[in-house]
């Protein structure tokens, strides 16, 4: 299948990316080229093949549920775009 203008807008919205109206045609072209490349996978016979999520098929390691991190709020908020009284500020969400 081929992505049209509407599809590109929908994907950009899902990805939370603003894109310029003028740029949509070239995004559509590039994304379709990439998807054409990817569509080569459909020819592969993968019947009964287990999906590979980790190269060494390792499992997630477990650790005791204990506190290992100290509070870094000040250090982390020092690099934030906008904070006040220890919280991150964003435009008003709830009226």
């Amino acid at each position, binding site marked *: 299948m081929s992505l049209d203008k509407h599809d590109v807008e929908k994907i950009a919205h*899902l*990805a939370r990316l*603003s894109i310029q109206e003028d740029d949509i045609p070239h995004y559509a072209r590039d994304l379709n*080229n990439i998807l054409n490349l990817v569509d080569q*996978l459909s020819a592969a016979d993968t019947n009964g093949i287990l999906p590979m999520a*980790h190269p*060494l098929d390792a499992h997630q390691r477990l650790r005791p549920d204990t506190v290992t991190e100290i509070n870094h709020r000040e250090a982390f908020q020092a*690099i934030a775009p906008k904070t006040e009284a220890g919280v991150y500020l964003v435009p008003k969400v709830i009226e």
Partner: protein
Amino acid sequence: MHNKSLSELSAALHNSEISSVELTQHYLDRINQHNGTLNAFITVTEERALEQAKVADKLLAENKAGVLTGIPLAHKDIFCTKGVRTSCASKMLDKFIAPYDATVVEKIDQAGMVTLGKTNMDEFAMGSSNETSWYGPVKNPWDTDRVPGGSSGGSAAAMAARLAPVATGTDTGGSIRQPSSLCNLTGLKPTYGRVSRYGMIAFASSLDQAGPMANSAEDAAWLMNVMSGFDEKDSTSVDRDVPDYTANLNDSLEGLTIGLPKEYFGEGLDPRVAATVEAAIKTYEKMGATLKEITLPNTGLAVPTYYVVAPAECSSNLSRMDGVRFGHRAEDPKDLMDLYTRSRGEGFGEEVKRRIMIGTYALSAGYYDAYYLKAQQCRRLISNDFQEAFKEVDVIMGPTATNPAFRFGEKTDDPVAMYLEDIYTINTNLAGLPGMSIPAGFVEGLPVGLQIIGNYFDEARLLNIGHRYQQETDWHQRIPDAFK
């Protein structure tokens, strides 16, 4: 001084022939002299470097120094360095001062090495030419009209021009090996899980791996000794002893069986590169190795598989760049959605946006099975090919890249043409195997790399195989005229 190996530099420091401060200043001077031309560094940490060098000199004077104490190094700007800008070559992180150190940085600091600065790269490591950097392209010291490769292009150019004695890189689909090939370096991508990913800005978490970029296999082995090892802060780190990677460098290659995949020597390979690589392989035959043709039948699936897996993982990883807690924030957002979309739209470059969108699409409702699940199955097929091959051969050899360094702009119009640049390197990332590129000769003055792929945790063997070749040849010692 900038033509010495790490062990020669170590000896000079330990014998007080030179101080770490002098050595560091020598490299800082070279960076000042050449970085304007090459754009290899995004940030030079001059003051910090000289402070680290002073500490190193003190340790040396007190006989408390390790092998690499006082030796300068450059970090790819993907590794978080506490108190220093860590940009990942993106406008998004242009003002991001890392609040902590990556494990790799911490280990290298603990070894007493001196950080000269942070090297340029493709934005968020997405690219094969270093043309996607927000800080502008890096030039290849062998021909400044050409790309150094990518994504670790800044580290590669810095090394080729001898602006650092050794450097770190990361490799998600070839980003250590392909620039090493294009810039005449020895670059090793270790087994997935060998080197900690903690504090290394994530692109595709199931593929990303850090490794050394060096002037020789011996130098790479020294840095591997420092970089490798289990880290509980990385959930995919492998808990396995780290050997001394320098211990077996001189082992004989008598009886080594080298597999030559026919898929790596077919259509798309520049015949001049093929001839160079074949000549290198002949050298191995003379050294006592046996050659065997093999097949990796699913090689053709590697690039398409990668362009599902890597974008899917990047779309998830980069969702943390939301303009709220760190990174670029758009001015005067009218609501939260506007803040997210404009911060991300302004902060990310074209290639990053393309990949986020492909990944978002592949993971969106209704398409998961057709794309992501299918790609994970193909990944298994690719991995199985390697395991079949390793029943018959010890290592696999072939070209690292299809061609020598290409010109700026040559592949930027068509993302797919750029993606095919990594056709010989991507499948080792998908399988999680270690791979190395070593200098194998030149085509019209441009370097060509030989790729050596090993089975899991065979890094020491790869380094041994690289080192023995470098005892027989001097390709790796060649330096571009303008940077001698």
